[in-house]
């Protein structure tokens, strides 16, 4: 397989890249790691005549530990995330998730920003970021705007960015004291079939906050706040409530059509993994 013909542009600033992408419009694609884009172009699924290379842009690089959280530039690779001492210390589930993406080669060059912008529904990062309450900062019409991951990704391969807009990076708040985050997924084929992530906070052993995100099954990440439903619960009461909540959620979550696994089985996995993630979240938050 060969790549179709295209012009390769290498702007030297985010402003320049944005301007170029605005001018070229639908004929152009922002090009970062290329693990998804070049593949899609080889397969004839994307026919951009211009690639605007974002890799050299220092503004999109870097992992910074800041008060209250971590900033990850859109051009940071999965490999950098999984091996970052800062992320390993502050957000171990994020490092763990990044270490499970595809394979070592994809992680070495694939970027967090590229992953989010490509918006492949069968993918882990957006789901975990959603549960973590991450904010995606993008340059939209020249302005810096923040979104949640579930807002940012509108559907399969569709974000709210328009030509000329760029994702700059991701702000992930540090885990609140007494809370834990858990990411679980089931991989049957090369890409995840079900992804769930939970964030659970406890005070004196009882739940005070809970959030669940479900991805890889539907057209976009579904995030639900379960703090109200689970507040004050622990032990058997928590488990019972989680089970009934998950049955409800799994029964109603929108699914993508034409998947190798049946809707029934996918809903079963959502229910199962969601409950496991919340249980593990509670367990983790107590320790």
């Amino acid at each position, binding site marked *: *397989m*060969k*790549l*179709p*013909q*295209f*012009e*390769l542009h290498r702007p030297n600033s985010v402003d320049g890249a944005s301007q170029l992408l605005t001018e070229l419009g639908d004929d152009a694609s922002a090009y970062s790691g*290329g*693990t998804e884009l*070049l*593949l899609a172009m*080889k397969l004839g699924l994307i026919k951009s005549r211009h*690639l605007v290379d974002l*890799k050299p842009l220092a503004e999109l690089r870097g992992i910074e530990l800041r008060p209250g959280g971590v900033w990850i530039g859109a051009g940071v690779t999965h*490999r950098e995330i999984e*091996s970052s001492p800062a992320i390993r210390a502050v957000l171990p589930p994020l490092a763990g998730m990044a*270490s499970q993406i*595809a*394979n*070592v*080669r*994809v992680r*070495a*060059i694939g970027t967090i920003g590229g992953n989010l912008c490509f918006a492949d529904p069968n993918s882990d990062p957006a789901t975990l970021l959603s549960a973590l309450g991450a904010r995606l900062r993008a340059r939209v019409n020249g302005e810096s705007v923040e979104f949640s991951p579930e807002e940012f990704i509108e559907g399969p391969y569709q974000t709210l960015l328009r030509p000329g807009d760029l994702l700059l990076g991701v702000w992930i708040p540090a885990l609140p004291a007494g809370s834990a985050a858990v990411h679980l997924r089931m991989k049957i084929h*090369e890409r995840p079939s079900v992804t769930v992530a939970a964030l659970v906070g406890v005070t004196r052993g009882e739940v005070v906050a809970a959030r669940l995100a479900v991805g890889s099954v539907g057209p976009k990440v579904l995030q639900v706040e379960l703090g109200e439903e689970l507040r004050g619960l622990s032990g058997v009461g928590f488990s019972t409530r989680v089970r009934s909540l998950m049955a409800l959620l799994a029964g109603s979550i929108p699914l993508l059509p034409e998947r190798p696994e049946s809707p029934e089985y996918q809903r079963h996995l959502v229910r199962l993994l969601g409950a496991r993630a919340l249980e593990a979240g509670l367990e983790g938050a107590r320790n």
Partner: protein
Amino acid sequence: MSPVTVQAVVNGDQVKRSIPPNLLLIDFLRDEMGLTGTKQSCEVEVCGACTVLVDDEPVSSCCYLAADIDQRRVETVEGLVGTPFHNRVVEAFLRHAAVQCGFCTPGLLLTAKAMARREAAPTELELREALAGNLCRCTGYHSVLQALAEVLGSEGPA
């Protein structure tokens, strides 16, 4: 298409070429450089047969622009030959007969090289996970895991 100039170090040699921007690294290596040790198989970044190192990181050369090796170092199996690492790998692979058809072998060695550089004595699980992106249909992997565990100084499978 406007050609792009790449200036890179391939297996220790300075290379400067003007190439079309849509040229894939695997085609640059195999067709332009004659480095046919790098193999093409799945073409979708899954099998690992086309693995080469760019600035010490393993990449799928089937989905990597040759234009992007500009100002970087590229290492293929041909560049490994004769290095102490390769000598150790060869001895271990021979001991365990961990080569069969050999089509996956070059990519596998480069993944192992990248691993050797950053991970001292990986656990068996780490080894399995690091190699999970290099498919082999012949060996059943057991001998490969044993050989690389020896090379990387870790506990191999039973």
